[in-house]
């Protein structure tokens, strides 16, 4: 019998030659459908309204601050000479980095036939898109005259007959993030169609049926539909995989093509990508641990799923640590006095506190995941993941602020300090993020039911005397 009892089963024990269960509690296709649909069909849980109210208020504050910014100008920020790129860019890179986990889980792990991705990919992809939304806002308002942001689109302006500067990585960013956002959105939505059709078929009210009916694009579940769907999914996964790498690569170019010490180094592209995956997974863990407890889907998002994500956090965190070390070493090895100074200044200059926060949170805290106790304890892994995200925000702060505030000419040095608007805008972007995520949890299938059922089929197949068969995917 299928159980939905909350006591989670330990499926983290590895027996070589036998694949551990990824769906626990003797589920059936029906019980999986019930478990996931229930979340959107039952009465709105009590916690949802206050949570949604609070986060949408914060989001509203963010929108008001943008209004204030447009009315008054960027002077309300702490941006100054020489730190022209300050918190808006830090926040942009932070959010766009978080937006890497979803598509990595759904595309790259798909290509690697990692079946454990199926329970977590939907929520992770949703989170990705919301993070990219938050990211997109910051460069848009950072240009100062936000109403002219459309100049970034490649067309010759009507009055001046001028094109955007194609040699600028900032423009590449527009393309990279834009492509990534649109492909991720299509990938997310397309993956959801079979599940939306399930919602449609179970809908009890006319409006529900109509809305989910429109969204599911006439899906009938015929084998022809499935064939087309699988083909499209595979193609999109293959297209999305290089995009996961390209976005943060181009973001790193924003910094690395310049000649500024601390920015101009060749390890930046892979190092930024590793950092992005690192922070993205940390955000997925931070969100999914409470989500699986609140909505009682521990049998779908099991400890094994969480443990695997924590291992990826450990691996990418160590990679980031290796990159920090390499940068520091080459700064000395190059014997370039500016490069050397930039790194000494980071660690021991006026922003030493930011640097050591970064190192502690990003390099040391994920090492705790060497201990199985910690990487399988939901509470502790959330603590570590939050530290990781704090660390990754500080990483972007360290890179952006320390390098700009003290460059080649001591006479032009300055000490950057954020204003209250900077702080509230960062806080406000979390409001936007959580508002969108709460809406997602309430109205859309938060677990990819159809894919989890595919895993269940493999799992049952293996159990019934065909133990030697591997994953069929």
């Amino acid at each position, binding site marked *: 019998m299928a159980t939905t009892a909350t006591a989670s089963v330990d499926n983290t024990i590895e027996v070589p030659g036998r694949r551990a269960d990824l769906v626990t509690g003797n589920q059936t296709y029906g019980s999986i459908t019930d478990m996931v649909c229930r979340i959107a069909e039952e009465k709105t849980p009590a916690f949802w309204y206050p949570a949604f109210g609070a986060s949408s208020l914060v989001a509203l504050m963010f929108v008001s601050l943008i209004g204030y910014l447009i009315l008054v100008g960027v002077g309300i920020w702490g941006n100054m000479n020489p730190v022209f790129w300050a918190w808006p860019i830090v926040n942009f890179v932070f959010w766009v980095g978080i937006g890497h986990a979803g598509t990595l889980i759904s595309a790259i792990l798909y290509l690697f036939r990692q079946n454990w991705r199926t329970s977590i990919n939907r929520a992770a992809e949703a989170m990705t898109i919301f993070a990219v939304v938050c990211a997109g806002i910051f460069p848009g308002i950072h240009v100062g005259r936000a109403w002219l942001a459309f100049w970034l689109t490649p067309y010759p302006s009507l009055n001046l007959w001028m094109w955007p500067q194609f040699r600028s990585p900032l423009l590449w960013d527009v393309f990279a993030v834009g492509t990534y956002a649109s492909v991720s959105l299509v990938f997310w939505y397309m993956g959801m169609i079979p599940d939306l059709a399930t919602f449609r078929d179970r809908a009890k009210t006319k409006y529900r049926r109509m809305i989910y009916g429109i969204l599911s694009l006439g899906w009938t579940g015929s084998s022809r539909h499935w064939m087309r769907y699988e083909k499209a999914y595979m193609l999109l996964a293959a297209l999305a995989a290089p995009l996961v790498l390209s976005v943060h690569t181009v973001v790193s170019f924003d910094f690395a093509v310049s000649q500024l010490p601390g920015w101009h180094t060749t390890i*930046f*592209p892979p190092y930024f990508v590793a950092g992005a995956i690192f922070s993205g997974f940390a955000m997925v863990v931070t969100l999914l641990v409470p989500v699986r407890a609140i909505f009682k889907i521990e049998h779908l998002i099991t400890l094994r799923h969480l443990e695997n994500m924590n291992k990826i956090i450990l691996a990418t965190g160590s990679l980031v640590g290796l990159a920090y070390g390499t940068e520091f070493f080459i700064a000395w090895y190059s*014997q370039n006095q500016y490069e050397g100074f930039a790194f000494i200044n980071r660690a021991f200059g006026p922003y030493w506190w930011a640097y050591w926060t970064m190192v502690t949170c990003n390099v040391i805290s994920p090492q705790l995941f060497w201990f199985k106790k910690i990487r399988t304890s939901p509470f502790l892994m959330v603590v570590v993941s939050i530290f990781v995200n704090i660390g990754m925000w500080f990483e972007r702060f360290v890179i952006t602020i320390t390098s700009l505030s003290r460059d080649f000419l001591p006479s032009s040095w300055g000490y950057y300090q954020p204003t209250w608007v900077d702080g509230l805008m960062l806080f406000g972007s979390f409001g936007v993020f959580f508002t969108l995520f709460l809406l997602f949890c309430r109205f859309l299938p938060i677990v990819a039911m159809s894919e989890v059922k595919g895993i269940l089929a493999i799992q049952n197949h293996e159990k019934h005397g065909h133990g030697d068969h591997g994953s069929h995917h």
Partner: protein
Amino acid sequence: MPAVLVAVGAVCLLLSVGLCFLNTHEGNRAEGVQFFMHSYLTNYMYCLSFGLGALFFVLVQFLCRAGWSASVRRLAEIMASTLPLMAILFLPIIVMVLMTNSVSLYEWNTDKPEGLIAAKKGFLNGPFFAVRSLVYFLVFIGSAYFVYSNSRRQDESGDAKITLKIQAFSGPLIMLYALAISFASFDWVMSIDADWYSTIFGVIIFAGSMLAFFSLLAISCMLLQRNGKLVKYVTVENYHDIAKFMFGFVMFWAYVSFSQYLLYWYGDIPEETIWYQIRINTDNGWPYIAVILLFCHFVIPFLGLLSRHVRRHRTGLFFWACWLLIAHWIDLSFLILPNAGPVESMFLVGHLLGFIGMVSIFLAMLLLKSINVPLVAVRDPRVPEALSYHNIIV
């Protein structure tokens, strides 16, 4: 057979020395020595890269509990176990650095370094270089030995716990590996131009090594199957997956190489562009090699391996694997040789002979290591999975 190969290798290497010595520009011996040392390092790094790639592959397979590769992993373990023998071939370089003040390979290897190199003396000096090289080899050889010996023990006992034991250690070993290969790349290859630096350099060497390893793996499986070995153990699905990794690393190599190029070209700082200056901004032939690399190491194999039919086609895959092995050699030559100064035509013959020599010796090592060894980790609990999975739902 191994003895013959070693003999052939030794003769070729000697001929290579000879050619470099005799055909020097206006009797300038130093030029010949300089070229030979760079050529030796190129060919050495080429053969070493198979072992390095194989070692990483094996460690990652255990770390990720991979099932698909269980049937071909032993071949990788054997390739990684050539590392101790390869270490012997590094001795000439160590001897040169410790015993002489020859700057024919490493310009920092002198008593009176000047300018920036003098400031790096604390790091770039003979004894410290030798100690570091020893540490790198200890890491590589130790990891390879640990995995291989345990895996062989499993051949006899079939104990599944051994898999878990290797898995437990593979995480820390990979961290050591990452540090070792980064710094080994800096020391052994990057420091031939002691002024120049690039933080991504280790990743570039790593990317090439992985590509070379996967190509060699595909070719080894095919040759063994043709000779009646491994017939039931390597399926078209395994080949397909190996080919996917080749395709992936073709892109990854292009990604990291282009990242370095773009950032230095864009920054346009003389200390950094000097490396490209002698490679793509001169009239000595290297610019052509740069273009050949762009097409033969990326564009053409990218298009070639794009198709699933090619990746699953025996002859098609064999062709691209051979292609990439050649491309990898050109890549390493491009990374190392331009620093050797002007290239005489006879030098190139010497370089090619050195290549044949080094590869022969490497093949001899490979054969020695695979004598009387099961070519499949038959009792690995994950072998059944490797033999029964499918890439395509039929």
